[in-house]
């Protein structure tokens, strides 16, 4: 299968790319790694007239921790995320997710920005970004603005990104002592989207009490979903397994799965419940919590 005809541009700067997007509104798509877009084009599910390749903009590929934030450039390859010592040691939830995105070869092309802004509820990083409270920096003709990840996903393949805007950076609150996260995914085989997956992030105070929690769900609804009640049920406690089980049940209630080739809806809710409980235990341990 060969993609339909398009005109390829590889601008050297973000502003040049935005100019092209503006001039070709509705006809142009941003190409980062192309690991979602090119298959869609080969199947004629997408037929943009122009591709704007941002992968050659060197300034969009970085992982950098400053006093306030972890900043990840939009064109950072998934495998660069996975290989980063900062990510592996301080943001293990992202390393968990990165190791389960598609397969190792796809991760050499696929990018963090593409994964978070494609808008497929099966993408793995969006749930992490919701759970950890990330913000997205997007640039358009009027300059930069930031959008909270939890405000970003409107519907399947529909996001808060305007047609002439480009995601440039993902901003994650800097990890502190007492933070712990985990991402757990059940997949039929390497390379498939999740049957269901769960991202959890906990922050504990010095006594081991949960001061904040985030839980989000992959591929069990039209978009990535927050499990707000499940998360808030943990805050203010020194949680036990019974609390994690109860949070798992609340997370399953928040899921809106459809029955499909990956299993019936009830099965997927059961998976959400179980993965939530397990991920909370893992995140709790990583945060330094003791039972």
């Amino acid at each position, binding site marked *: 299968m060969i993609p339909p005809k*398009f005109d390829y541009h590889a601008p050297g700067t973000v502003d040049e790319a935005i100019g092209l997007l503006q001039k070709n509104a509705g006809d142009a798509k941003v190409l980062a790694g192309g690991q979602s877009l090119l*298959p869609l084009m080969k199947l004629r599910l997408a037929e943009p007239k122009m591709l704007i390749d941002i992968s050659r903009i060197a300034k969009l590929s970085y992982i950098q921790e400053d006093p306030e934030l972890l900043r990840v450039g939009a064109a950072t390859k998934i495998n660069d995320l996975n290989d980063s010592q900062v990510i592996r040691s301080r943001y293990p939830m992202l390393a968990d997710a990165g190791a389960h995105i598609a397969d190792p070869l796809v991760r050499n092309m696929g990018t963090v920005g593409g994964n978070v802004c494609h808008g497929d509820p099966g993408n793995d990083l969006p749930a992490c970004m919701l759970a950890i409270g990330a913000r997205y920096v997007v640039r358009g003709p009027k300059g930069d603005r930031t959008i909270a990840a939890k405000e970003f996903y409107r519907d399947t393949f529909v996001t808060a990104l305007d047609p002439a805007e480009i995601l440039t950076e993902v901003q994650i609150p800097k990890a502190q002592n007492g933070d712990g996260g985990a991402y757990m995914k059940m997949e039929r085989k390497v390379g498939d989207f999740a049957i269901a997956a769960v991202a959890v992030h906990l922050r504990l105070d010095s006594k081991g009490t949960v001061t904040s929690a985030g839980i989000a769900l992959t591929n069990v609804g039209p978009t990535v979903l927050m499990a707000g009640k499940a998360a808030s049920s943990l805050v203010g406690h020194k949680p036990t397994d019974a609390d994690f089980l109860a949070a798992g049940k609340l997370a399953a209630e928040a899921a809106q799965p459809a029955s499909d080739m990956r299993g019936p809806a009830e099965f997927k809710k059961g998976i959400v419940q179980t993965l939530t409980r397990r991920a909370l235990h893992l995140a709790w341990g990583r945060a330094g919590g003791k039972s």
Partner: protein
Amino acid sequence: MASTAIPRLTAGAPMGGPTRMVHITVNDVPFAIEVQDRTLLVHFLRDTLGMTGTHIGCDTTHCGACTVLLDDRPVKSCTVLAVQADGRKVRTVEGLESGGKLHPVQEGFTAEHGLQCGFCTPGMMMTSVALLAKNPNPTEDEIRHAISGNLCRCTGYMNIVKAIQHAAKASGGAK
């Protein structure tokens, strides 16, 4: 889609759509060729350059038969545009043997019977080469993880794992 239905692509073939000049170094040989923007890297290699060592399997990013190294990293060339490789280095299975001597990974696949039908083998070997360049002494788990994007329907993977271990041992760090 059956491979017979894929149009033959040659430089400047009347496929329609915009074209551009790309500069791609394949197995250390620089090429400057006009391609359609929509030409996939795998078709550039197989049809434009006539290098048919790289296989087309599923054509849907699943099987890894089309794996080549792009700037030393294994990628699925059915899901990369030739224009995305512009200015970059590609290494294919044809580039493994050197001066009549097989690459340690090729020796390993031979010695350990790492293939039956051979369809997945070029991709499997390219992934193995990249793995050993990064991690000269991988554990079995690391090998299995590294090749998890390359499907083999014959061997059950046992002999492929042994072939890669053989290569690692033989070369003390295959490059």
